[in-house]
């Protein structure tokens, strides 16, 4: 069906917040849909994206450029970028939870898939999921809490896969 030789993409997912959960799963699911062979190496905070239930939040305190928008009301209102100072976004209790629910709602309004949906598509389409053994040891994480598709691997295993990759990205 495809005249092109199969391409390979190797991703490192190192972050576990909601905003950074999207890029690896969007790229991996799309690459798989483009008949590429895909592997994602989840390391450090990215490991949480392998949890059976993803509990990713967005952290406004560490994203000073993040636009703050309302997920309800007329479109003109929703498109307003609220100038909320970072000191408030980072320090007011509950702001993170509110920002997370707003981001999820906005994504839903705009027809964007959830992180879980994208991850399911990745698994269905054969994307290889590697959990970083060292980080699991450091954080005291066991493989039981991860989705079944997870393989545990180390740096050398990932690099062996990435050595023949056409696309390699660190997220």
């Amino acid at each position: 069906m495809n005249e092109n030789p199969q391409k390979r993409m190797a991703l490192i997912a190192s972050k576990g917040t909601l905003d950074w959960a999207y890029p690896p799963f969007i790229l991996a699911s799309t690459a798989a849909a483009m008949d590429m062979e895909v592997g994602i190496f989840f390391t450090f905070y990215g490991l949480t994206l392998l949890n059976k239930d993803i509990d990713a939040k967005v952290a406004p305190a560490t994203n000073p450029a993040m636009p703050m928008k309302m997920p309800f009301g007329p479109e003109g209102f929703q498109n307003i970028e609220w100038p909320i100072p970072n000191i408030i976004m980072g320090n007011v209790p509950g702001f993170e939870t509110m920002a997370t629910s707003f981001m999820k709602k906005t994504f839903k309004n705009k027809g964007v898939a959830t992180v879980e949906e994208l991850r399911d598509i990745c698994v269905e389409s054969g994307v290889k999921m590697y959990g970083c053994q060292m980080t699991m040891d450091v954080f005291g994480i066991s493989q039981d809490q991860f989705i079944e598709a997870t393989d545990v691997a180390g740096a050398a295993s990932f690099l062996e896969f990435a050595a023949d990759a056409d696309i390699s990205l660190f997220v």
Partner: protein
Amino acid sequence: MNEIEFNQELDCRGLNCPLPVLKTKKAIDEMAAGDVLKMISTDPGSQNDVTAWAKRTGNDILSAGHEGSDFIYYIKKN
């Protein structure tokens, strides 16, 4: 454009990147070679993305056009 015969229709209205491409891939996988899929999307980004996807996967876009806010593609599975 409306005269193109198709075997299956896929409505991706309201869905955003990368869902139209992912759903198109899934639909095409379940079709037979030579069959034509009509896909409707409201995502303007689909214009470039569906083309790139088809080029990479070796499927043919027989027609790509739009009616109002709908982008309509006829994709032949190879």
